[in-house]
Every structure is written in structure tokens, then in C-alpha cells.
């Protein structure tokens, strides 16, 4: 049964996956929580995505599929997320000129792009709640007492955000560096 759920979840993500890799990652966040992954496991997916080459959605399908359904799950998820491309390209291949000139499709795309930004921001928000505060929703956040365990992840989050956004430092380097720092912090 889980294999069917995996297949359907990624088929849906493929067919509704507008807005590129990170927007699709937001959709995968929803589905992977439904499939029984934890928020931390999803955050680890993000880190692995950074370290492993290839399209984000295919990496994510392989990872989520494997963790919830082993190697069969990984293959099914990857095939499912790829099927829409084959179907849609075969269908639209002849109409490519028409599609690019069609006003309605331009309006559609004009709104999809900012929406994708909102989607990705929401994924960042949900992940930040889970990874830094260890809560699932805003309500939960208001009801928890803040403890000292948030200090280390909060500092890493802010430092990496500034280092990457302002100073354009390589994310792979920052990810590995954060891991090494964490390893040594354990001994303090």
C-alpha cells in the first residue's frame, strides 16, 4: 500500500510541479510528512540535495522513496515524478509556438513565478520552526518554553543565511563546516 501512496504522491507532484525545483521541494515536504518522514529527515534531504548533483526533484524523489519504501520505493517515486515530463512534452511538442504566444498562458506564468517564491519561503519557515525550535506549527511555538537547545541551530541558521546571501559563500562548504562545528560542540 505504501508503494501505491509513494507513486501517487510523486505523480501528483510531477503534474502540478510548476515553478522549478525548489517550489517542487515545498510540495515534496507536504507529501513526505504524509508518508511518515520526520521534519528532520526532510531537512537532511535538503543538505544531501546540496551535496549530490542532479535535478532537485529527482534527488528528492529518490530519497523520500527510499526512506519510506526501500529501493522499490526509490525507483517508483523517481519514475512517477518523471512521467509527467514524457506525457506533457509528447502532447505540447507540436504546440510550442502557440503556447509561447498565448496571452492566457503568459498570465498564468506571470502569477506562478511570485507564487513559487511564496512556496519556497513557506518551506523555509516550516523547516526553521522544526529545525530550530523543534515544533510543527506557530501555535505550538507560542506554547513552548524556549530552552538553550535552540542557541546552536539558531546561530548556524543566521550565520549561514548571511554568509550565503550577503557574501555568496559556497553552500556545500557552509553545510560541511556547520556539521564539523556541531560535532565539536557536543564535547563542550
Amino acid at each position: 500500500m505504501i508503494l501505491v501512496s509513494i507513486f501517487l504522491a510523486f505523480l501528483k507532484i510531477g503534474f502540478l510541479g510548476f515553478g522549478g525545483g525548489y517550489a517542487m521541494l515545498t510540495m515534496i515536504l507536504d507529501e513526505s510528512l504524509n508518508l511518515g518522514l520526520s521534519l528532520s529527515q526532510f531537512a537532511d534531504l535538503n543538505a544531501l540535495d546540496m551535496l549530490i548533483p542532479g535535478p532537485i526533484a529527482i534527488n528528492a524523489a529518490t530519497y523520500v522513496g527510499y526512506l519510506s519504501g526501500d529501493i522499490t520505493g526509490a525507483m517508483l517515486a523517481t519514475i512517477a515524478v518523471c512521467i509527467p515530463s514524457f506525457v506533457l512534452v509528447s502532447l505540447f511538442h507540436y504546440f510550442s509556438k502557440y503556447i509561447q504566444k498565448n496571452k492566457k498562458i503568459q498570465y498564468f506564468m506571470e502569477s506562478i513565478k511570485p507564487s513559487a517564491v511564496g512556496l519556497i519561503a513557506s518551506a523555509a519557515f516550516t523547516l526553521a520552526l522544526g529545525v530550530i525550535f523543534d515544533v510543527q506549527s506557530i501555535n505550538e511555538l507560542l506554547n513552548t518554553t524556549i530552552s538553550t537547545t535552540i542557541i546552536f541551530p539558531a546561530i548556524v541558521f543566521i550565520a549561514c543565511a548571511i554568509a550565503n546571501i550577503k557574501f555568496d559563500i559556497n553552500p556545500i562548504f557552509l553545510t560541511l563546516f556547520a556539521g564539523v562545528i556541531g560535532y565539536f560542540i557536543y564535547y563542550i
Partner: protein
Amino acid sequence: MDKKNIDWILFKVFLIAGTFTFAGGLAMLPVIEKDIVKKYKLMSREAFLDDAIMAQTIPGVVALNCACFVGKKCNGMRGMLAASLGSILPAFFLMLIATILYDYIPQEGPLQMAFVGVRAASVAFVLAAAITLGKHNLKNMYAWCIMLCSFLLIVLFNIQAPFVIVGAGIFGVFYFSLLNKRRPS
């Protein structure tokens, strides 16, 4: 060039692009363009850019969409299959190996703290992705409103992301259609 040769070239170009570009599908397009257009001269630059735009217009994995369009144009169904296999296989196998290894790592002691660091860092890069994309796509009030509404619908009302983005697109069709009817330019 004979047909078998074209299939092999398509497979190779997309395989190499998939193996050596990090940070997702969009980063692959320039690499693929260089090989397909300049090195092997399988299609003109205009035809490739056409495909690249279409790959981002239809839903799904951008790099794979691009492989399908380019493959189809170069050598029909067979070309499409060759190019798409090239773009899928490296990501699938490398990620599978990485996931299996990751599954083996015991998350306790100092390694658990290492994971806390890695996770917190990765959240920062999702935020960075939103900001980078925002710089390109949030150029007027309308775009800001759509972005904010999408964000709030997901965070506050738990609406599923795929429906939010498709909903935004449909809203845009009605909004701009009405706007242009009222003020014919």
C-alpha cells in the same frame, strides 16, 4: 549523422550535465546548450532557447523537460528516451547511494549535534533560494501580493502547496484578462 550516433550523443550530453552540475536543473541549461548547439551542432541556438523556455513553462522537472524537448526535436521518440535517461540516471544512482549511506549513520552523540548544524545550515539555503528567486520575480505590487498570499495560505491555513501555485496561476489568468478588457492597450 546516423541515428544511433545521435541517441548516444544526446545520452552522453545529458548524462555529463547531470553528473557535474550541482544546485538543480536550471544550472544545467547553459552546460547543455554549449554541447548541443556549439559542440555537436544538433540544433540552432534559437531552437534550443525555445525548448528551454518550454521546459520551464510546463510542470515537472525542468532538466528532464528540457531533455525531452531537445531529444524529441533531434531524433523523435528514441532521442527523447536517450536524453531523458541521461538526465535521470546520475541523479538517481548518486542520490540512492547517498541515501543508503545516510540511513546507516547512527544519529547519536557528537554526530547528532553535527546533524543539528547541517540541518540548520540547509534551512538557510532554502531561504536564500526564496530570496534569489524573489529578486527576479517580485518586481511589482501584484507579484508581492501573490507571494504573500501564497505564503500565508500555506503557513496559516495549511493549504497544500500544489493547489496554491496552480490557484495563483488561474487567478492570474482572470485578473489580467479583466484588467486588459477594462483598459485596452
